[in-house]
Each structure stands twice: as C-alpha cells, then as structure tokens.
C-alpha cells in the first residue's frame, strides 16, 4: 500500500500542482496562475471537441468490445474441438504492442489497402471508404481497431468468469428444461456479474484514457477530427510546451473517469447484489 501511494498517489498529487501554473515543462521558473488554465479550456474549441470524442469512443468501445467479447467467450466455453487454439488465437491481437497494431491497420485501412480490396473482391464496392482520411468515418475506424485488438482480452476475463460457475448449476438448469437463451439469462448472466463488472470498468476507463492507438493511427487528425483528451494532453505538453495547461486537461480527464466509473460501479454493484 505504501508503495502504491509512493508510485501513484503522491506523484499524482504533486503533478496536480502544475495545473495551476504556467510552466512550459522546461524553464526552471514558473508562475502560479490559479484557475486560468481551466477557464482557458472553456474557450478552447479543440478541448471541448476532444472531451466529446473521448466520451463517444469510450461508450462505443465499452458496448461493442464487451458484446463481442461475451459472445466469443460463450463460443469458446463449449465443447468445440478448436476451443483451445481459438482461445489463444483470438487473444493474440491483445499481445501486440498497440503502436504496431496501429501501423498495421493504417496500412490495411489505406485507400488502396487490404480492407478496401477485400470489400471490392466480394462486390461491396459501395462500402469502400477512405477509412482514416474521412473525418466522419475516422473515429469509428479507431473504435473498430480497438475492438479488434481487445475483444479477445474481454473474452479471457469472461472465460475466467464462466469457469467459476460450477457445472452442477447448468446440469440442474437443463433438467429444469430451460432453453439455451433462458439458461443464459437466468443462470449464466447473474453469475457472470463480477466478470462483467471488471470488463466494463476496464474498457470504459481504457476507452477514456485511450492514447497510443489514436496517436499512431491518425495523430488526432484529419485536423482535430479524432483528437481525444489524451492526445491533446500529449500535444500540449510535449509539442507546444504548455505543460501547465496539459496537466489541467489531465485533471479534467481524471474527474471524467472518476464520475463515469463510480456511477457505473454503483450501478453494477447494485446489480450484482440483486442478482445473487
């Protein structure tokens, strides 16, 4: 606990201080400027847009990634012969360094890339897109890449949850004559609640803090069309040398994560309790 405080809490608290300064991240001198960084944010359309993108990405990833992850987990938690290989295979994308995944996808999603040629080959030319260059589509392409990479990650957690459900419970349920869906809804779902809580928390927090993939896929572009709070924090601190302002953004990010995830946690905890 002391170590955790030493590595995370204390430095973070010390970091927050810079949110109230005009430090450029380099100069030995800086001045305390109170709340100016925060009020400047309200006049910064890039910041407001980034906050909106962040929430959009987080919600989309949470819903899609966990939906797919759960289906995959149910699929591989059966007696199919390829289950062991599939569990490894579907998880493999999560192992690759995000920066490299992003590079790979930049290549695949290019105008002449594999995705468009694949769509062309199966006669879906109308779906061909400039996936990362069109500001309307780019954000969703990023969500797609994240889901591709981390659906297997959610799956692994769901599988761990599914395996903690004793087989006897299923056997009892099938004797009672429930159909597959009813069995899922009334038996599996409540017992899966802890795994669901973990997955939802992780993906929403991960989605809000998302940085590497956005940065490597689009750098926040075209223009600012895919900027998130994290990419803005990075650009402000290290490209523009506005360290204080960037830390103020990080504080806002923390507040958003805290509000969203504690709201979610309270909701899920209640859900868990009523289920058991």
């Amino acid at each position: 606990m002391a170590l955790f405080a030493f590595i995370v809490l204390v430095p973070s608290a010390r970091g927050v201080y810079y949110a109230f300064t005009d430090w450029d991240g380099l100069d030995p001198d800086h001045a305390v400027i109170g709340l100016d960084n925060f009020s400047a944010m309200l006049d910064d359309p890039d910041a407001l847009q980034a906050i909106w993108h962040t929430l959009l990405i987080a919600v989309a990833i949470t819903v899609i990634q966990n939906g797919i992850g759960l289906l995959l987990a149910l699929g591989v938690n059966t007696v199919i012969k390829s289950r062991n290989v599939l569990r490894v295979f579907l998880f493999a994308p999560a192992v690759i360094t995000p920066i490299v995944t992003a590079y790979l996808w930049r290549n695949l999603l290019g105008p002449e890339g594999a995705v468009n040629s694949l769509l062309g080959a199966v006669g879906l030319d109308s779906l061909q897109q400039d996936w990362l260059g069109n500001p309307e589509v780019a954000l969703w392409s990023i969500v797609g890449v994240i889901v591709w990479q981390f659906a297997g990650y959610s799956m692994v957690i769901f599988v761990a949850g599914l395996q903690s459900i004793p087989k006897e419970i299923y056997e009892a349920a099938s004797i009672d004559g429930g159909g597959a869906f009813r069995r899922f809804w009334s038996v599996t779902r409540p017992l899966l609640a802890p795994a669901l809580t973990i997955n939802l928390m992780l993906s929403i927090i991960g989605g809000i803090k998302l940085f590497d993939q956005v940065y490597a896929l689009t750098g926040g572009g075209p223009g600012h069309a895919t900027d998130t709070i994290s990419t803005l924090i990075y650009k402000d601190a290290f490209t523009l040398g506005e360290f204080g302002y960037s830390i103020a953004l990080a504080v806002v990010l923390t507040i958003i994560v805290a509000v969203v995830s504690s709201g979610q946690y309270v909701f899920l905890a209640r859900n868990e309790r009523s289920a058991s």
Partner: protein
Amino acid sequence: MKARKGAMLVAAITATAMIAACGSGDNGSTDNSTLTLASVDQGSIEQVVKAFEAANPGVKVNYTTSSADQYQQQIRTQLASGTAPDVMTVWPGNGNPGATYVLAKPGYLLDLSDQPWASKLPAGLQGVAQYEGKTYNAVFGVNGIGAVYNQQALDKAGLTAPSTWTELLAFCRSAAAKGTPAFALGNQDNWVTQLVLYSLVATLVYSKDKDFDKKMAAGQATFASSEWAAALNKYIEMDKTGCFQKNPLGTSYEASQELAANGKTLGIVQGNWVIALLKGKNPNGTFVLKPLPANDDPASTFMPGAAGAGYGVNAKAKNKDLALKFVSFVMSPEGMAVFNKAQGSLPALSGVGATADPSLAELTKFINEGRTVPFMDQLWPTAKVQQNMLSGLQEIFSGQTTPDKLLAEMDADYKAGL
C-alpha cells in the same frame, strides 16, 4: 492485523528485489571514458558511434535512439530533472519543443561558439544554429524540399519535369489522364501536409522579399496579407487539378513512398531524404530532386533548404571533454560523411569534400547560388503556429475549414508567441 502483516511481507520482498536489481544497474556514468547520448538519427547514429569509438579506443558511448515525438518527451523530462545525457539531438532554429532557441533560452545547452567549426558554418545555417549570437547546435546536414521524380515513370508517360507553374498544371492534367497522377501525397501524417506549401512559399514569398521573416517578427507583415495566401490557394488548385492521387488524407507517408517508388505516381513532393527510401523500395529506379515551380519565371524559383537536426552539448554534461570531442567528430569530414551518406543529406560545411549524389545536383546548385530559404517554421516564435498549420491543412483537405480562416489563425498564434 491481517493487512499489516501482508504489507510488511510486501515491503520485505520489494526491498530484496530492489537491492538485487540495483546491483546490476550501475551505469558507470561518472567514469570519464563513458559518454551518454540521446538521438533521433536512427539508422545513422549507430555508424557514427562505431566510428567514434574506433577513433578513440577505450571510449564507450551509451546511447538511446527514439522517434522525434518520443525523443522530445524524453529529453524535456530529463532536462527539467537534471538527468539529460551529455550530448543530445537539437533541432535548428525555433518552433519545435527540442529546438535550439527553446533549449538554449533556459540555459540547458553549452555554448559551442569557440569550436573551430562554428565560424565556418554558412550564413544561412548560422541563424538557426545560434541563439542570441552564440552557437549551440552542431548542425551537420542540409536538406531540401522539392519534387522528386521517378525517371522511369516519366519516360513511360512521355512527360518531362515542368519548370513553370503553367507547365506544372498541364503536366498534372496529362499525368492524371494517363492514370498515373503527378505526385504522391501522404497527408495522413500531418507533417507531410506542409511540404508542397513550403515549396510554393519559397518562390512566391521569399524570392521577392528576403526579409519577410524580419518583417513578420517586427509585426510589419502577416500571413494573410502576404503571398502566403497565394501559395495556399495554388496548393488547393494543384489538388483540384488532379496533381495528387486520390484520398491524400487516408494515405500515409509510407504509402506515398510506395506509390512514387513503383511508378503509380510520377513523383512525390518531399525532402531529399526520401530518395534513399524510394531506392530501398525500388532498387532499379532513378530518382531526381527538382524544384517545384510556383510561377512562370524559372529564374525566380527558390527551394526550401535548411539544416537538419544537429547535436548540442548539455550545459551540465558529466563528461564535457568527451562530449566536445564527440561533437567535433560529428563536424569533422569523416563524421559528417557518415551521417550525410546514411541520411542522404548534403554536408553543412562546404569543402568537406564528400561528393554529392547526382540526384541532388539541383539542390546543390540552388544552395551554391543562394537560392534556398530555411524551412519556414524554423524562424517562427512558437511551435503552435506550425502545429495549427498542419492540422489546419488537413482540415482544408477534408473541407472542415477555409484558407482564410487558417491564415488568420496562424497570424493570431504568431502574434501570441512573440
């Protein structure tokens, strides 16, 4: 009670692990035969370090290399914490978080003015290697931006490189009609968006007005009311005329090289460094760098040509003597030749004797005739002007903003940074 026991156990395990790990972590930086170095010159610094170690037996260089983004983050954290390496990559001029002005102003760099090479730097490079009259940056290479043509693709299309603006537009139309657009444009990487614009600005703004930067700094000129507006409109006109391949915003720098290397476009507007990459992708190709025309008077054509990133010495270097020795080596004919060859750049000091690649003949000629201008951002007061220009150019290509709005924003950022 339970928790306390656990915590003690944890503390004990951690302490043991730390002691074990520390034992192996001695980096020997106090010893005076070891030099620490951080660099962005991946692919060339390795060879320079090897040559330096060979020339100075017993010397060891501990170096890290990273991409520009990560390097800037790393070096700023280290400088602010007093743990930066002895020698580090420093960009010329201003307008970049690792640039000479930015790092020299708070006193992080050692004054190198008394080094023999400092006074030999050509006038065009001194301005960006110095801060307030003192030299801080050992710039070793010169780069230029222009149109790099794929000679085989030109021959196949039966076209020749244009030398005036009118010819350029006609060239674009014929190239597009043949199914091989004139230039590959990888605007997905936002730094690429500026290259065409810089090439046009060099001729349209600087050939008429060499003091444009001084006027800007004195508040006597603006982007919006200068030929910058004409240059930006010509950039857009090029796009509308079909000079570039489809979907430039979805095309990465990498993908744009593929197009030009394999003759899917006739060329690419890029820096000279791209030639080595194109040859890597197509070893049989011939690639030539030429200026990109911006008006109908070839005699007034200028090229952007400027110092690439160089090396600075940490003002608090643990091993100052060795650091200076390394920088002298970088600026020696031997060290410079290794760098120039690996990076495809031209030497910063004339008379160093390295014979330039024939594909760079035009650039060499322009430099010797004094018809080059530094990359525009190197003399801007803050990084914000360039960053907003880059994202703004992407927004123009995706219809999210207009040239007038972009130039007005750049003017506002420039003034705010003065």
